């Protein structure tokens, strides 16, 4: 049995047991039990939709505390491209990078820089032509996880390159070890993340055995602290630190990664429902002439991550403004090093399967159809499952009872009352008044 770690978790005290999150989850991974939401771990892809939709803020992301900065001898900050879009009137990325040094990091390695390297590597791999077309981006961990559980036929299409943050962590750690002479375990790489899926991606990575990212902190947590540091940073002379161009920063919003392909035969979709629609169509080969597909689980791309502070659309505009005068790319490579490639193949995890044996699965599905036909079909969610069909499946899997349906429960009570009424009016023979029938029979 595989162990599952998830960065999306529940604050039991805040959860009201309502149905907002169960209806929203793209993999039907949430049920309400004992008045609290419960996440089916095998199904969760850490997309963060439940965090976004919960009106009681009961869904939380787990991430590391800012104290991680003190837990290593040498600490490297890895700020996400979308992080630069969180600030007001920011004209120069260097202010943010210098402020991170003033905050306590020993070094900053922009994920945007690694993103440019990944873009260059993607161009090389696509030119070699061995990848099945269209190539699907592997950058959004929620999408990769979604494909793994729902779209097995598309696994071969996923770009076998590590995400920019992983590449950033590997390169920066290697270079820092050389520079400082410290052993790698004393060097900490800390990702400043817009999303919970990236937390899971470092604790339980796909495509590699172990992540080089040591800790993940939330943009929303470091942001207020950094803003106060920035005032002092702007007052003293700053080091020129940024090494990322237009392409690198563009990765922070939807279609940014595509722009790095330098080929306009691409498709970019964002928002989990749109992503699912594209993947469904792709599976049916509805479009065959696209070279590259970028998919982001969050609307707007990484700027839409639930750990960010700025409105995604405002952030996108800010990102355009900052990158406007930057050179196209500052990072070029001649060959793709193995350091950037997946070393573990992605495997299909059929979590939605009804049974190991096809014949038994078919019998179970017939049973699901049978139960479904007896339910109201309102998909009200009051039973704790997202739809009537999901309840019927839970019943067949042995996880629920059809009587959990409140309409069925009510009709059971009505039948019971009818029976009681009949019993109430029934007079047993010893008390039954004579009707005259008995005498007639005797005669």
């Amino acid at each position, binding site marked *: 049995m595989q162990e599952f770690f998830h960065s999306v978790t529940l604050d039991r005290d805040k959860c009201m047991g309502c149905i907002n999150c169960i209806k929203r989850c793209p993999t039907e991974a949430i049920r309400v039990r004992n008045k609290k939401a419960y996440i089916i771990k095998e199904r969760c892809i850490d997309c963060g939709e439940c965090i976004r939709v919960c009106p009681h803020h009961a869904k939380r992301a787990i991430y590391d505390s800012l104290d991680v900065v003190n837990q290593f001898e040498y600490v490297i900050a890895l700020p996400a491209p979308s992080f630069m879009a969180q600030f007001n009137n920011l004209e120069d990325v260097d202010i943010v990078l210098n402020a991170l040094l003033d905050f306590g990091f020993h070094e900053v390695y922009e994920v945007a820089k690694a993103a440019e390297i990944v873009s260059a590597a993607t161009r090389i791999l696509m030119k070699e032509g061995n990848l099945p077309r269209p190539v699907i981006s592997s950058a959004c961990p929620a999408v990769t996880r979604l494909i793994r559980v*729902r779209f*097995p*036929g598309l696994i071969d299409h996923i770009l076998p390159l590590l995400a920019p943050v992983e590449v950033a962590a590997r390169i920066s750690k290697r270079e820092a070890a050389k520079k400082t002479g410290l052993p790698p375990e004393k060097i900490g790489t800390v990702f400043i993340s817009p999303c919970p899926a990236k937390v899971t991606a470092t604790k339980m990575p796909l495509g590699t055995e172990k992540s080089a990212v040591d800790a993940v902190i939330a943009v929303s947590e470091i942001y207020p602290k950094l803003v106060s540091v920035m005032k002092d940073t702007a007052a003293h002379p700053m080091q020129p630190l940024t090494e990322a161009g237009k392409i690198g920063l563009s990765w922070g919003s939807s279609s940014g990664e595509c722009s790095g392909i330098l080929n306009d035969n691409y498709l970019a979709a964002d928002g989990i429902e749109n992503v699912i629609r594209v993947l*469904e169509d792709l*599976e*049916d*080969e*509805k479009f065959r002439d696209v070279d590259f597909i970028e998919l982001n689980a969050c609307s707007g791309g990484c700027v839409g991550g639930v750990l960010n502070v700025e409105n995604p659309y405002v952030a996108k505009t800010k990102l355009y403004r900052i990158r406007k005068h930057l050179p196209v790319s500052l990072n070029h490579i001649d060959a793709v090093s193995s350091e950037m490639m997946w070393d573990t193949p992605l495997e*299909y995890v*059929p979590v*939605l*399967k*009804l*049974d*190991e*044996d*096809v*014949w038994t*699965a*078919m*019998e179970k*599905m*017939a049973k699901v159809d049978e139960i479904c036909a007896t339910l109201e079909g309102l998909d009200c969610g009051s039973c704790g499952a997202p739809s009537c069909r999901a309840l019927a*499946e839970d019943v067949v899997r042995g996880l629920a009872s059809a009587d959990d349906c409140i309409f069925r429960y009510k009709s059971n009570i009505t039948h019971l009352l009818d029976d009681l009424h009949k019993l109430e009016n029934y007079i047993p023979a010893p008390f039954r008044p004579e009707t005259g029938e008995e005498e007639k029979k005797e005669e």
Partner: protein
Amino acid sequence: MNGLKWTYEVDGSDFTRAGEASSNVKKNLRKLGVSPEVIRKVSIALYEGEINMVIHANGGKIDVEMTPEKIDMVLADTGKGIPDIEQAMQEGWSTAPDEVRSLGFGAGMGLPNMKKYSDEMRIESTVGVGTTVYMTVYIK
């Protein structure tokens, strides 16, 4: 139990709904643990068939029957029929109207793709009466 049966009515007037049957069958096959390759074959063949029914025959009816060995699909319509099946099977041959072509369909790959992705295919057609396409994909 003999097998699972699914029936779909294909609405000939609504292009945006074409593909509902194939996507529903795909969802079921995934839950039944059918291999990705078989799912791919079935969903592509079925989708092409659905589109054909919408473009050429104003809709129709799809019956899918599954056993652990195979998946049988019967696509029946009461459209104008195919006068020359051999010609219709040729790649690139199309009688689709311009407004359908402008949507990106009508490339003359429908029937050839159905043949390519199914393990067995048979067409019965009578001009003026309708067309029935029988397709089978083997699971093992």
